[in-house]
């Protein structure tokens, strides 16, 4: 077996967007959130993903806007780096290498050039204690910078980023962990610690959950496990500190946030209600109820116009005032997926459990939730220990016209409730409509369910196997000529009173294999005749899978004693078997490939093989830790044309799987990755500009420019014609300070013209000299105010053209001149 280096496991689509607190940018137009290995930039108005900032090689654990420049953002990751991004353009500006895994990041305007990160204590990793570390970011022009200057600020902090907060412009930092609150004043370099008792007499649980600090007053709000909020004041005294208690939440307060003016405090918890407390009159509260799922994070935009809440069902709700204005929904994985991963044949969407009682249809290509289908059709009541109806099985027929679902509820001391529902696809509404409900289709739990996948077959047949020892075949029939078809039981099969565990149709629908513990029975669905029994004692069959296309004569099964067997159905004999602990066996519906996830020593290995060939097509060790129990082959919309043998199996479809921590992972080839990176680079040139006629003009021009720049680079020509700078400035300058449009128009058009010859080029420096004298006079005053802007601009430019030679002095000067806040560029423009 050969390891294939060019195929690796990545998160693509469906990653958590509720992992960390989202950030709303200063202009409230964009929302940044950590999502898997990247940072996603969403538009707050259209809910679309504007950019995906890729670059981190591990989980991103925090995003913050750079306090000194509100157009840039830091992100930190478990890979030990902090990256600085220009998020409007999606450009990576700098990478700071810290060297330790970073669990969260905090910044304040008070500390320039310093970010605060939470890292694991270096001494012993077993006890998992964390410390807050100040990282001095070195000022350097390089792309990749090492940041060696670390200094510990607070030891023993919580890894939850919501438990650390800067107060009042960064004068102090508050950190809560377990049962103590620690406040560190930077000016006095003094720490105050406050402790609470574990439990109160009245049954309150005092563990700190989250912290928020008032932006103007010295007031810290802490949320507790029993739903109380404490407002701490006077905490610069070890003894005379005081707090008041607010109590509305019935369960733990998971997140809190003050509005930027400090007039309101927002809090949320498992109740999925956003509570708005008036800071000055805490008896007045406003509520935003029915947000759908438990609130995990709350963030408010710096101008206070928007607030957003993250929810446990991988959703971000954007709230304007006290009304929901937009919802960003990611893939809902929850704590467990009862249904297997499925692909809807019609929409090619991934189908699995979503909200309680719902199925979600998630488009993997667009990384977007298409819709939720309410299966249970009952009100969901959140209560601890209350048993709800759960959707446990889903099956689609080959055309995607029919869907079958099984829901069950097991209450204490009550009988199992089972419902089998059949859904028909409605062309008009483009959604599934309930066709038939079969109450109690079986007397016990349903263990397996499958549709006959044969495309040619006229009738739609569904098989359900249950713990009651029977399997049933359900057929769709028209009862009356003008009625729609409905579902009827066609056949009940059993074998020696054994419990059926798996069922599987062959590709052409002519054979049905049902495993009864250690025996595999093969039936003919046409006549319901038991054709053959195959058995491989002594252990029960775990998975069953027919081979496809050229291998359709094979039936594969795995057993509990780690055996993979392959039967030849023509001879009804065991073709081969091998010893492997296979947790999941999955056939690609488009090729003859079969994927086997093999659990070995705490991690999972993947083997892809053809039943007819002894050698695996592909194998990858240690795909992820833990057992993989859910995976699916998702057909690609356009085929990959990979000629490499090892990656050919990915040409037709993509393999997605769920890890034990409910992360959706997939396999990608190098070629595919390169393609993706290329496309993302293309994107980042145009995206900062709104779609206006202006943009159309400019967009074309830019393309030309970039082409010219590319050619100019090789020729060693200065790549910046004056016009582009002018245009940029034109776009950047606020509209109210610009001269009238008629005045600008001619200039603007002129600037777009390609300059003729070098004559003007030569005349320019002379003018510049003249200009610069005048400029020097007023530059003193202006330099400070605009200090940050040229730096940013040059950085952006440099990263955009990493290969460009360093700018000459004259160019730099010119650049600075163009960037000036005064409008001297106008005169320059006029003369040219």
């Amino acid at each position, binding site marked *: 077996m050969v390891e294939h280096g060019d195929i690796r496991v990545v998160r693509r689509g469906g990653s958590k967007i509720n992992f960390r607190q989202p950030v709303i940018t200063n202009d409230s137009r964009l929302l940044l959130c950590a999502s898997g290995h990247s940072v996603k930039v969403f538009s707050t108005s259209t809910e679309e993903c504007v950019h995906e900032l890729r670059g981190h090689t591990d989980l991103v654990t925090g995003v913050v806007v750079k306090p000194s420049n509100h157009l840039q953002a830091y992100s930190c990751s478990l890979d030990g780096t902090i990256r600085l991004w220009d998020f409007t353009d999606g450009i990576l500006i700098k990478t700071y290498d810290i060297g330790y895994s970073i669990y969260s990041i905090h910044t304040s305007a008070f500390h320039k050039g310093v970010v605060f990160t939470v890292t694991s204590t270096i001494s012993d990793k077993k006890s998992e204690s964390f410390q807050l570390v100040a990282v001095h970011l070195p000022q350097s022009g390089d792309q990749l910078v090492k940041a060696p200057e670390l200094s510990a600020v607070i030891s023993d902090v919580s890894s939850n980023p919501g438990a650390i907060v800067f107060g009042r412009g960064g004068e102090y930092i508050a950190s809560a962990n377990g049962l103590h609150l620690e406040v560190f004043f930077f000016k006095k370099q003094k720490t105050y610690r406050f402790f609470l008792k574990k439990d109160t007499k009245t049954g309150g649980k005092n563990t700190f959950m989250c912290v928020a600090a008032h932006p103007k007053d010295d007031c810290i709000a802490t949320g507790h496990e029993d739903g109380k909020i404490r407002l701490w004041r006077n905490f610069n005294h070890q003894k005379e500190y005081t707090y008041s*208690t607010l109590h509305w939440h019935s369960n733990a307060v998971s997140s809190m946030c003050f509005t930027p003016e400090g007039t309101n405090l927002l809090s949320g918890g498992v109740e999925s209600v956003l509570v708005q407390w008036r800071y000055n009159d805490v008896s007045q509260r406003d509520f935003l109820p029915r947000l759908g799922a438990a609130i995990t994070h709350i963030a408010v935009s710096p101008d206070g116009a928007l607030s957003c809440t993250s929810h446990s069902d991988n959703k971000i709700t954007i709230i304007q005032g006290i009304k929901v204005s937009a919802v960003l929904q990611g893939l809902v994985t929850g704590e467990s997926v009862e249904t297997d991963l499925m692909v809807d044949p019609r929409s090619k969407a991934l189908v699995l459990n979503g909200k309680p009682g719902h199925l979600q249809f998630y488009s993997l290509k667009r990384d977007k939730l298409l819709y939720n289908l309410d299966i249970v059709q009952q009100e969901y009541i959140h209560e601890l220990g209350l048993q709800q109806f759960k959707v446990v099985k889903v099956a689609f027929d080959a055309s995607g016209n029919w869907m079958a679902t099984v829901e069950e509820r097991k209450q204490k001391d009550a009988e199992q409730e089972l419902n089998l529902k059949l859904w028909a696809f409605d062309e008009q509404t483009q959604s599934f409509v309930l066709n038939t409900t079969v109450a109690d289709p079986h007397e016990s739990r349903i263990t397996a369910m499958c549709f006959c996948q044969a495309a040619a077959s006229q009738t739609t047949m569904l098989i359900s196997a249950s713990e009651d020892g029977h399997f049933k075949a359900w057929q769709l029939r028209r009862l009356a000529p003008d009625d729609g078809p409905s579902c009827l039981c066609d056949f009940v099969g059993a074998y020696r009173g054994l419990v059926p565990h798996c069922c599987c149709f062959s590709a052409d629908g002519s054979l049905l294999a049902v495993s009864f513990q250690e025996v595999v029975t093969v039936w003919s669905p046409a006549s319901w005749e038991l054709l053959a029994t195959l058995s491989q004692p002594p252990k029960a069959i775990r998975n069953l899978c027919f081979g496809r296309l050229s291998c359709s004569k094979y039936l594969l099964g795995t057993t509990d004693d780690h055996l993979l067997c392959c039967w030849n159905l023509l001879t009804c004999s065991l073709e081969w078997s091998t010893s492997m602990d296979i947790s999941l066996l999955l056939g690609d519906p488009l090729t003859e490939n079969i994927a086997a996830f093999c659990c070995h020593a705490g991690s999972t290995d993947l083997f892809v093989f053809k039943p007819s060939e002894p050698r695996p097509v592909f194998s990858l060790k240690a795909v992820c830790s833990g057992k993989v129990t859910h995976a699916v082959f998702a057909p690609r919309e356009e085929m990959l044309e990979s000629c490499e043998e090892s990656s050919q199996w990915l040409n037709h479809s993509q393999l997605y799987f769920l890890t034990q921590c409910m992360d959706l992972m997939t396999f990608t080839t190098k070629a595919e990755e390169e393609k993706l990176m290329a496309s993302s680079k293309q994107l980042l040139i145009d995206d900062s500009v709104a779609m206006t006629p202006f943009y159309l003009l400019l967009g074309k021009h830019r393309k030309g420019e970039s082409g010219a720049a590319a050619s100019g680079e090789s020729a060693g020509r200065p790549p910046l014609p004056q016009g582009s700078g002018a245009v940029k400035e034109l776009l950047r300058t606020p509209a109210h300070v610009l001269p009238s449009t008629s005045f600008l128009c001619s200039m603007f058009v002129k600037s777009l013209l390609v300059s003729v010859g070098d004559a003007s080029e030569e005349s320019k420096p002379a003018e510049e000299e003249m200009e610069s004298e005048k400029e020097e006079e007023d530059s003193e005053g202006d330099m400070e105010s605009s200090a940050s802007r040229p730096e940013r601009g040059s950085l952006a430019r440099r990263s955009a053209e990493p290969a460009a030679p360093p700018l000459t002095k004259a160019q730099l000067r010119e650049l600075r001149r163009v960037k000036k806040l005064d409008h001297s560029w106008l005169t320059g423009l006029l003369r040219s």
Partner: protein
Amino acid sequence: QVKHPVISLRFVFIFIVQMGEFKVHRVRFFDYMPSAIRAMVFSTRTERLALARADGALEIFNFSDNYFQEKVMYGPRRVAVEALCWVGPRLFSAGLNGEITEYDLENLRPRYTVEAYGGPIWTISVNSQGTLLAVGCEDGTVKMFEVLKERIQFQRNLDRQKGRIISLSWHPSGTLIAAGMMDMIRIFDAETGRATHRLLVDRGAGASKSKEVVVWSIAFLSDHTIISSDSAGKVQIWDGLNGTLIRTHLITKWDVLALSVSQDESSLVAGTSEGTVVQFQFISSTVDRLDKDWVRTRTFKNHSHDVRALAHTETAVVSGGMDTQLVVRPLLDKVEKNTRESAMRKVSFPHRSLVCCAKKAGLLLFQFPDHLELWRLGESDGYGKLGGSLPVKRGPEKLIQLKRKGEDHICCSALSPCGGWLAYSTVTSFRLYRLQNGSISICKVSKLPKDLLPAHQLCFSTNSSKLFASSSNSSVVVVALNELECKYLGTLKAKYGCRQPVHQLSASDNGKWLATANTDCEVHVYNLDKLKLHCTVPVYGSCPTAMAIHPTTSNLVVVHADQQIFEYSLVKKEYTEWSRRLQKQGLHSMWLERDTPITHVTFNPKNPAHIIVHDMFMFCIIDKSLPLPEAKNVLYNQMALRSLPEPDRVLHSHGFKICKDFQHLLCVSLLEDHSLVVVERPLLDIVSQLPAPVRQKKFAT
């Protein structure tokens, strides 16, 4: 060694339980019901809290001496005291009868009463100089009284307003006075008597819009801030100079009845009808700025009913209300943690005995404010197993219910050990009754000596031949009783100049000694043969709460409010060996941390080494022959001790046999026939008799 068994079987009224060496009468038929707290005022100078109850009783607690209830007084008639006021060491009260009363704290009676002629008085307030008393009347006048040395004198009226004056507060300078009224607050110039400002208070929202809002309480701070609390549930902060509203804190849906400001004006508490006490603190909003603001901080919920009265001492919030309990809640930022001071205290029962037990006759006398009840204990002749309950042959029986004569409260009562005599005293009169034929017949003894004045404490000698009554100036009147007459024998007086009332009397079994204790912490022992002072026990700094003379050894055992125990030999006139040993080693810290005082001391005649003491939560048999508890060990009670493994039990056993099987004790006494009487009054029974509290929305109901 005494073993304490477990109780298993219960009867409705009486529990006779075999208890080690004792048969226990478990008495639960004393329906003692404390009265609601109406007003309280704390004097920082004397560290004493005066408290008025709804039935007209006044209690004085000494906060410097473990919150001991020093004195209990009753007003002249059964009228509710609405407001209290300390002027230096003098205590004034005003009530809805329209009178101002000053109290004689030495003789525990009203000194004089002044009619204000303004209808019912709602409030009384003194200026910080202690020269002027202002009272707020129903007719809308604020009346000023000048405080003279021996009395008070009406000075003048301030401008009369429409509507009643509910609350008053002086500005510390004494030039301004703020009055809370219906729907408004008025500020008066105290010199001219003119109203300078009129602050309108908002009414409640919704349906209560049409109802007048009552400004229940008001506080005028030295920076001219006025704080008011009203019936709409608001605490409002006003600028008293400009007459503008600064902040409104809505803290309840119901009334905010009481306010109290700390001495340094940095903290403020408000009591609500929901039973909560809300604290506000004067805090600067940011660390380095000086402008401060009143911020609502803590909420204490120690009451089930209205908090009617509040006092903010330097270290604690004292609150009381309809649920009759006095709660002292220390502010943890002002006291050291985990000390005696930082523990919360609840005073539910009076710190003196309301039960008198006739040891020979097996009778119990229960004292209520307006009547007395005489009960005969039940009997049982069976033998049960240890810890079980015995069959009752004859149940307890209520023999007599004796209603008081006149309007005055009964302030003390006594029953002779033989059950033949019964005496009680009110503020104005003294009565003695003869009980005969097993207490079926009762007749009043009409011819009483003239010297027998109304008493503060009564006591019969063991052979029932003498009656001792403590009267004014710390003196005790001795009266001889026999079938035909009662004769005045003499007055016992300690020394000249001692004026505090005697609150404890104890006669020795042999009839030779009488010990008295007064609230000046002095304990005197008199020789009854000579009717002369025998000796004075060295004065200890804490007030004696209970004492008794040992029947055989004639040792006087005194228990003090700070839980210290002394044994004093009357023969040798010195502390006994055991007492010295106890003082040397010191009492166990867990013993000292108990928060209710010992209210009764008695002895076991069979075993002279046993002293039986009890407080509200436990009774304890102190075996002097056993070693004292070690400070490093935990002070286990008997129940906990039994659950320990055998070797530990030996290690932890000590001379203090504490029994917590009976709870909320009012009396533990040992009868002649060697059975123990335990009078219980469970607090839950008291709570169940209280009126319904205001309705509150509970979460998930």
